[in-house]
């Protein structure tokens, strides 16, 4: 039982790490209807820029600010050169464009900073401690806390500020939002910039966990099933989806693995997401569109 709880908790905490990446997707999808495959590349770019600056002697917050600034520039460039020319194209086209985008960002990141593996120390100890016989990781708790704060901040942004309200209007109905004078382009840029910020936070936490290196961009693959289960349009959904995926894949690996063969974590979330889709095609929190003919 203790072991089960440990696996469960470990899974839930790992799931929150997935959610961190998934939130970036949700933001962009809500505002521009784009399933942004380049989010993983953005995470890599942010982490690599940050750690490279740090290694060159730039202090923590300075590096953070410069990285954030470069994410803003990236967002601006994406809006200008990719999104604007592709307005009103089918979602599949936009998705494929983000595939191209992820190639560009990955190439750019490595051109600028090289391909070495960097360690990243955020100064958070990862010594485990025990509560009631259960092993807990400080780092994971910290990451979970960060995810929580991020969600809180984002929901404040969405619900209380002018920008947030226009964001929601755009998410709701682009045409209507346009007609009441909301500038679509501006909203998109803000959203991509915020997604860039989320990417930076995710990049720092994941980078501290894995080391900053190329495979950071692969975590996008973990975020996809999270989104399917949580729905593409709900930040809360991303959190819940992350928890479900994290916990179930760990439990499956531990309990199902010995039966059918180990190493199933790669595909298990996808099969789970697929089953989910067949039952609830829009995820738990997603809104289902009614098809009109």
């Amino acid at each position: 039982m203790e072991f089960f709880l440990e696996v469960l908790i470990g899974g839930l905490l790992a799931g929150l790490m997935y959610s961190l990446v998934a939130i970036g997707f949700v933001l962009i999808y809500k505002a521009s209807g784009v399933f942004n495959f380049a989010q993983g590349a953005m995470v890599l770019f942010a982490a690599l820029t940050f750690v490279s600056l740090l290694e060159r002697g730039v202090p923590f917050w300075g590096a953070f600010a410069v990285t954030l600034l470069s994410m803003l520039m990236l967002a601006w460039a994406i809006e200008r050169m990719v999104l604007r020319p592709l307005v009103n194209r089918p979602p599949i086209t936009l998705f494929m464009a983000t595939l191209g985008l992820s190639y560009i960002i990955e190439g750019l990141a490595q051109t600028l900073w090289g391909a070495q593996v960097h360690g990243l120390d955020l100064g958070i100890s990862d010594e485990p401690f025990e509560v009631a016989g259960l092993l807990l990781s400080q780092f994971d708790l910290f990451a979970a806390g960060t995810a929580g704060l991020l969600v809180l901040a984002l929901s404040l942004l969405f619900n209380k500020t002018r920008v947030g309200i226009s964001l929601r209007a755009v998410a709701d109905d682009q045409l209507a939002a346009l007609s009441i004078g909301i500038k679509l382009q501006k909203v998109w840029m803000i959203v991509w910039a915020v997604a860039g910020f989320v990417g930076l936070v995710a990049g720092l936490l994941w980078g501290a966990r894995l080391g900053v290196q190329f495979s950071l961009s692969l975590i996008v693959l973990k975020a996809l099933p999270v989104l399917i289960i949580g729905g593409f349009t709900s930040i809360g959904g991303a959190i819940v989806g992350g928890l479900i995926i994290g916990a179930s894949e760990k439990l499956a690996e531990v309990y199902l693995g010995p039966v059918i063969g180990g190493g199933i974590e790669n595909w298990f979330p996808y099969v789970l997401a697929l089953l989910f889709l067949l039952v609830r095609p829009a995820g738990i929190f997603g809104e289902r569109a009614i098809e009109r003919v």
Partner: protein
Amino acid sequence: MLYRESGQFSTSYLAEGRLFKLYQQRWGFYALLAFAFLAVPYLGNDYWFSAILIPFLVLSLAGLGLNLLTGYAGQISLGSAAFMAVGAFAAYNFQLRIDGMPLLLGFFFGGVTAALVGVVFGLPSLRIKGFYLLVSTLAAQFVVTWVLTQFGWFSNYNSSGVISAPPLVILGHDFSSPAGRYLLTLGVAAALFWFAHNIVHSELGRRWMAVRDMDTAAAVIGIPILQTKLLAFAISSFILGIAGALWAFAYLGTVEPHGFDLSRSFQILFIIIIGGMGSILGNFLGAAFIVLLPILLSNLSATFLAGVVDPGQLENLQKIIFGALIIFFLIKEPAGLARLWQAFRERSRIWPLRF
């Protein structure tokens, strides 16, 4: 005028479905085929066969497979490489376990196995659409690689989990030299391209496009949606499976399941984006582009920039170029290189007139 087309009319409905309606195009095409089959084997060298022509043909074929599914039937997939893997491993096992199995029949059964797997992962396409379908094809991608690595049976318990090509012998002729492997690939590719061309110009091809353009309307006029989609998955996977077998046996000789990973699926998707979705010719153009551009860049820099530009940087540059081109094509020419080629041909039909 390069083309004199006056006086050429189709005289039967069937003749209209022909590959090329003009004599000039038809003869040009036959000449090209003859050149590829008869002249190239004598003109080419090992490098051209093994490093350029064979991968080009196999990737064109893989592009064709995905294009039928995505470009014609409108179902996006990121699992192409998985179906290639199924084809390769199935062909290997048919060859290994059934005595006297002819090589080409082994390929065929490899393709059929891939088609069956394709149908299984295509089943959810009835309920889920658009990029939600990516989940199903990504599941295929991960599940297939896992299964092939997990169970040693598939690689005949090879300690390294790899499969190697069986002897490439057809009716007593040995095709294992580079030129032979080229001819084998070319022959299989030509047959499958002919097959695919006929399909997309038949009723089934129209049904695929109808489902792609608007599936509710397709259902209302009586097109059986699920059957049409599943046939797309099956035929697409069949071709991908044979492409996978060729990749393993005619091109590399030895492969492991991870040779068919997600980046291969991306590569194939890029071929059809750049080449042109919903175009048969586009697969060749896209594959040529994706095979030749890296080689060109690396050759040019090795010749002119040796020591000036770090080869690593060049690779990054190439990544950026690919990404940028994909976006460029999506923005400017969603129909890809095939459309550019068509426009070029339209112009040459009336050349030197301006309009």
